[in-house]
């Protein structure tokens, strides 16, 4: 029984990296930059956060280092695409592969391990104990989760109501029009990707701190699921985060079902559940969603 109730805190905990990556994707693509390198953002930020936490002994320093890494990767993508004119899909794939290899290499170099880093302490705020209330309190009091919730909640408003949001969306819808009004499209997009990187990085940091260590390839495709959520939401931050919550719930359900079913073959099938659900929803919903019109369009300087 407790495993069913515990699905609520589990859902929230599981959803954070997905939601961060998805909202990061929305920020990037609303500005017109195709961003399939979310996986790279997650991986580099989780590794950097753990490495900095191990080196400094401070989780806060780790968190900042993670966010910084996400910003660097994301801005790097923006500069490659907008300044060096690299194809955005190529750049994204390259960053994903590079991030996977580079974090493995760094694991080997720093900790002489092929699979994982040494353990770090978590924030571990909130009451101890195994009951659902305590679990929920711990999830909700986690500083990374709180930070992520804050920026995710603020994102729709920031995109809709602020000067930066309006200009960023203009660059995503019609870069030509934006430029004709004196808006620096490249600079706006780089800024959008910096914000995107910071938000996505919170997801990576959460992933690592939740496991109390970095594991090679620990993003495990979350960046791609997040991309699906971006498309599904019609490039809207709030809906994308909501889609990730649903996905998190499915994954929590899957874990709960595993507890029930034990180690039968059915377990493997149950693990497919969230992914099959994503595919089905994408297939049903994708026709209605409209991408930003200027997605992937560059502007030429006169």
């Amino acid at each position, binding site marked *: 029984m407790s495993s069913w109730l515990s699905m609520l805190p589990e859902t929230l905990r599981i959803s954070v990296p997905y939601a961060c990556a998805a909202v990061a994707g929305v920020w990037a693509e609303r500005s017109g930059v195709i961003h399939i390198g979310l996986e790279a953002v997650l991986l580099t930020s989780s590794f950097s956060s753990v490495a900095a936490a191990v080196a400094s002994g401070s989780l806060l320093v780790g968190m900042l280092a993670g966010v910084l890494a996400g910003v660097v990767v994301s801005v790097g993508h923006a500069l490659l695409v907008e300044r060096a004119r690299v194809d955005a899909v190529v750049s994204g794939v390259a960053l994903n592969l590079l991030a996977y290899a580079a974090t493995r290499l760094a694991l080997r170099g720093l900790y002489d391990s092929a699979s994982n880093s040494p353990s770090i302490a978590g924030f571990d705020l909130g009451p101890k104990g195994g009951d659902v209330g305590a679990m929920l309190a711990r999830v909700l009091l986690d500083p990374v989760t709180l930070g992520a919730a804050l920026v995710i909640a603020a994102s729709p408003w920031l995109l809709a109501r602020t000067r930066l949001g*309006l200009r960023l969306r203009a660059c995503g819808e019609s870069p030509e029009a934006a430029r004709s*009004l*004196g*808006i620096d499209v490249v600079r706006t997009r780089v800024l959008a990707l910096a914000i995107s990187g910071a938000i996505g990085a919170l997801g990576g940091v959460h992933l690592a701190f939740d496991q109390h260590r970095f594991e090679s390839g620990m993003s495990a495709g979350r960046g791609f699921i997040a991309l699906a959520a971006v498309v599904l939401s019609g490039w809207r931050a709030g809906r994308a985060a909501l889609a990730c919550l649903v996905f998190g719930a499915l994954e929590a359900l899957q874990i709960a079902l595993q507890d029930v079913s034990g180690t039968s073959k059915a377990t493997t099938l149950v693990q497919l559940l969230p992914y099959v659900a994503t595919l089905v929803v994408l297939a049903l919903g994708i026709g209605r969603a409209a991408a*930003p*019109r200027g997605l992937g369009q560059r502007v030429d300087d*006169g």
Partner: protein
Amino acid sequence: MDGLLLELVKVSRSFGATRALHELDLRLSPGRITAIVGENGAGKSTALRLCAGELAPDAGEVRVGGRALHPARPEEAIRRGVGLVHQHFMLVDGFTALENLVLGAEPMRGLRIDFAAARREACALAERTGLEVDFERRAGELTVGERQRLEILKVLYRRARAVLLDEPSAVLAPSEVGELYAALRRLADDGATVAVVTHRLDEVVRFCDEALVMRRGELAARTPLGAERPPELVAELTRAIMGREPPAPLGRPAAPDPGPEPVLELGGVELRDAAGRRLLDGISLALSAGEIVGVAGVDGNGQRELVRVCAGLERATAGTVRVGGRDPFAGVHPGPAAVRAARRAGLVVVHEDRQREELVLAASLGDNALLGDLGAGHDAERVARRLARFAVEPATPRLPAQALSGGNQQKLVLGRARDRQVRALVVSQPTRGVDVGTARRIQTALAEAAAAGAAVLCVSADLSELAALCHRIVVVRRGRIVCELPPDASEDAFGRAMLGVEAA
């Protein structure tokens, strides 16, 4: 409003090997409407874009209010009070008109944009200038006229004291053109500098104070338009533009005897979009051999869809298209197979948007000239013939199509269409953005096609073109033919039919 003098001083500018402007001296003075006229590729748009900081000169100086425009960027030009309305509207379709208006110059209230203040200012501005727009609608849903007004409001909202417009009237109905110039006149009277690039000389003579004639990147003549505006003025301007005698007026071929069977017949053609709205609502038309029929109407009333159905790109949800009594699309899926079927039947179509529907801009002129006839053999010969048909300039087959000016692109498109086996010709906006001389040649070619026995259906926003060319003209509104008018019907009668206003 303080006057803002714009000057180009010995300005040169090239695009690759093409020289657009050569030591051009140009002055745009406050308080008047200056028209800039010239052939395609004469450098009119380039001159405007230089004034607006969108291009930097290779040599010479752009001066705004006596000081050099530096750096040559749009934001600097906007800051100094110069606003440019582009030929192709620069609106964000997904944004509301209000969002478009404030974009780049947002009134702020703390962190957020103060849309309430923006709305107040927008309404005040609209009232002062007479440029009415529904600010809550998305830009993509506005009519062409409203989009144009919004573009001008955008410029004024940025406190522009010089308003430059590139081909503002090409897409407007006659009454809207009058309103546009009335608004521009108010601005000029208020002290603003107003400059208009246009091909429509009748407008220049009717509404402008001065005409600057450009030829091959240089200023060829400056014609002040005083109180006296004799009708010969148009011919005089035409001569200055072309640098030689204007072409003889177009002789419309005599109306043919209706044959026993129409060559091109549309029978109750209906087209619905995915949401079930009728884009075409029972269009019926029959054209005999040798007949030229015009289609007039405000842009976006089904003209584009009508042409696409004829081309086989859309399948009519009801009704048929027949060429010589046969339906070329029977049993064919819409798309490439239908386009081929139409061409086989001798139904040749020229779409309105040459850059998106006719040409592959990044491909060479040679490849573009052969589009649709690849593998038919005699390539070099065919390319040379099609480039020469309307004298595409430069006629270098290796050059990418995007290196051509708009008018030259159109020459290529028509040269290609006219070179095919034609039983029925459907053309849309054949001379949009094309200079006088070339326009006349294109119109003559259409008349010749008809004289040779083809049925010609011509969609155009230019009423004087339709009046000169067509035997009869149908007016479309909301996907229906609302009436048929003789070519000598008054502009007023057309305007009322197009806008659906009953005669008073």
